[in-house]
């Protein structure tokens, strides 16, 4: 595959050690066509990563609120300005093989019409099977094209966008970038993958598939990234406010799950702790 055909876009914040580990495990990412985004105020903390993986293109930006949406938009703009046929969005703690990455891009190129192709989450093994939950999607919508196996579903975290889509759909509207100052952008929050999916859906684009031959894994709740669990919850709220304004029709369907059994457990533990005599 021509190295300028596709790029990989990875924002990272507050965890150079995790990015370092990811790049150590996936040395095939040490290429100019891998664009890693780093906040200007964290540039120094990523020095070792930049030194050890010097071929990567590092993009710097201001992001005072630590918003993943802002980070993604900066990366998107930088990559689209260079111009690739395909853009693979991944996280700094997403794990996949070189074969899986190639398959993801090739699978995307096998479609004449624009299609967003996601990798299949759960394993790094090339012969991985879909999760129990996704088996129903495979039964309902599974198909094979150019030797790759697909099913219809929005697959995030490790996914590939064609230029005609990714150059038009934005994480943040132009006005946020051109006429608003940092505090407004700082309130963008997270949920960047949902943001771009909803932005595409708003244009009427609905062609999302998952390629079973592009497996990947992602660790959850690691330090850094969107911050601690409380910061994460706050950013979810900010994102909900933003998305509610941008896509009220879609967001009306979104629900929150309130795990009361877990809440009771926390409350009971708290009470037990308070009752312990000193």
């Amino acid at each position, binding site marked *: 595959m021509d190295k300028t055909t596709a790029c990989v876009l990875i924002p990272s914040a507050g965890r150079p050690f995790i990015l370092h580990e990811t790049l150590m495990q996936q040395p095939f990412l040490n290429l100019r066509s891998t664009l890693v985004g780093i906040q200007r105020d964290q540039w120094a903390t990523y020095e070792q990563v930049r030194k050890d993986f010097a071929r990567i293109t590092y993009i710097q930006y201001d992001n005072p609120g630590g918003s993943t949406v802002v980070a993604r938009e900066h990366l998107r703009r930088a990559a689209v300005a260079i111009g690739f046929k395909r853009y693979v969005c991944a996280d700094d703690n997403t794990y996949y093989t070189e074969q899986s990455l190639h398959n993801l891009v090739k699978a995307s190129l096998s479609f004449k019409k624009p299609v967003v192709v996601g990798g299949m989450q759960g394993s790094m093994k090339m012969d991985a099977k879909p999760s129990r939950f996704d088996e129903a999607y495979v039964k309902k919508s599974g198909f094979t094209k150019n030797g790759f196996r697909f099913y219809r579903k929005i697959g995030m975290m490790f996914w590939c966008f064609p230029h005609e889509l990714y150059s038009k759909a934005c994480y943040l509207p132009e006005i946020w970038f051109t006429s608003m100052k940092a505090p407004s952008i700082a309130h963008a929050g997270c949920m960047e993958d949902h943001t771009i999916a909803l932005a595409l859906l708003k244009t009427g684009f609905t062609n999302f598939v998952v390629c079973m031959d592009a497996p990947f894994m992602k660790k959850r709740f690691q330090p850094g990234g969107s911050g601690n669990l409380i910061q994460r919850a706050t950013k979810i709220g900010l994102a909900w406010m933003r998305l509610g304004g941008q896509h009220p029709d879609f967001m009306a369907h979104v629900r929150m799950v309130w795990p009361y059994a877990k*809440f009771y457990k926390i409350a009971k533990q708290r009470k037990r702790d308070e009752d312990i005599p000193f």
Partner: protein
Amino acid sequence: MKISLSKPTYAVLIPSKGRPDQLMKTLEKQSFLNRWNTFIGIQNDQREMYQEVMRCFDQVTWISFDNPTASGCVARESLRKVATGIGFRRYVPTDDNARYTEESLENLIRASVVYPTQPCIVSGFHGTAPHFDSAKIKKAKEYGGLHFYEKWGAIFWTIPHSIYSRMSYPIDGGRMDDRFVSFAALRQGCSTWVVCMEAPFNKPTQQKGGYSAAGRTRMMGQSIVALARDYPEFMEKIVISFPWMRIIAKAKGGK
């Protein structure tokens, strides 16, 4: 156990916004609410709109307040402050379109008193509960002639004074007012939440007006931010569910 309900030991708290016709209908159907221990909250800028309802149900205690952001939390807090200031044993926060009988309301209060674990929060038995809660209903237990099963519930529920007087709804809390009560109670160590099957109620969904309709998603986002700030220990456990198939269907339909 016999509990005297002759003197009101509880208050019913109802905020209403932008739908005097709906409130009128509710009060006509539930005329037992026309008494001083029913507190109805109206925004100052809507008093004129509600004049007729206020005239027809003049035994109700009408509370008015400023609420420029049309926040459900501001409305609830205004009612809570007044009612807890007077001091009742129980508070029943409910909606202007919730339907229940007098017997159901009294059962709800009685249930809150007779339940063996105190303090507890008791919710009414929603019309859809026989279907959705069937597994829990099988495990229901009887106390004082009433049947209970463990579950969190809102809309038509009763909260003891010890909890309701020691919490507050934040002014920037958006529309998820029930979650602020829940987390405040949990933080105070109250983790007993039950539904009383002898306190049935119903509530129509998707009606016009009201606090839940006002900028729904924006207000929900605002609530999440405020809840994360005020109750981080619980909010770190929440999960958001995007029903993509339904959203895609919506996108296809909107082409």
